[in-house]
């Protein structure tokens, strides 16, 4: 089995599939017409709340918002 089989150009440049797929999705979202575009941008936001645990109890959680990768 050829381990040097033709790989897609993005994998050859060191990008993973998930990064490629997210970039494609962002590009499509940026080209939408107006009412759909604002809905789509809200969908793009990823946020999660993190809380550190000490002595078996969670401390106050912080909400982190990951800005979408471009």
């Amino acid at each position, binding site marked *: 089995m050829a381990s040097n089989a033709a790989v897609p150009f993005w994998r050859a440049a060191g990008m993973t599939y998930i990064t490629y797929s997210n970039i494609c999705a962002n590009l499509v979202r940026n080209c939408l017409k107006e009412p759909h575009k604002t809905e*789509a941008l809200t969908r793009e936001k990823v946020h999660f709340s993190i809380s550190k645990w000490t002595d078996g109890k969670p401390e106050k959680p912080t909400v982190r918002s990951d800005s979408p990768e471009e």
Partner: protein
Amino acid sequence: MFRQASRLLARTTTSRRSRAFSSDVPATPAQDSNFIESWTKVIPNLDPPKTPSSFMAPRPATPPSIPSKLTVNFVLPYASELSGKEVDMVIVPATTGQMGVLPGHVPTIAELKPGILSVHEGNDVTKYFLSSGFALIHANSVADIIAVEAVPVDHLDPALVQKGLADFTQKLSSASTDLEKAEAQIGVDVHSAMNSAITG
């Protein structure tokens, strides 16, 4: 040598297929019978608890003859566009080109490139522009199409698409590192696919 030929030919045409293909799938059972039997042996008084398989809709078995309709499940991370819809044909934008899927298609896993998915039901054709994803076609004529972003083609703004195409073509020529070149190339690919979707 040729005296044997007619006997051999007759044998292959009359012999029936006695072994199933490995890609044929049986229907999944709604309950795990082994678990239930072992439970009732050990604890006959209590009812066996429900296992996850009893909550799921059982997978349809591979029918012995080709079914007349294809069942399509088209899902996105935030919504399920089509769920168990029976259609005549779908055309998916695989990386190897536009692939038409009819009922009875060979089981395939296809990676999708940015392009148009068209769903044909009788005389209606519904088209979506997909950003990328996968299409899984199973032996029982169920097609699962997964994409990150899918929009009807008339939600795309032609002016923004042209501008994006021009921007990325310019970035591609001025890119220095491999990663920048790859990103610019992705931009050019996606925008030209959107362009041909709008105009085509």
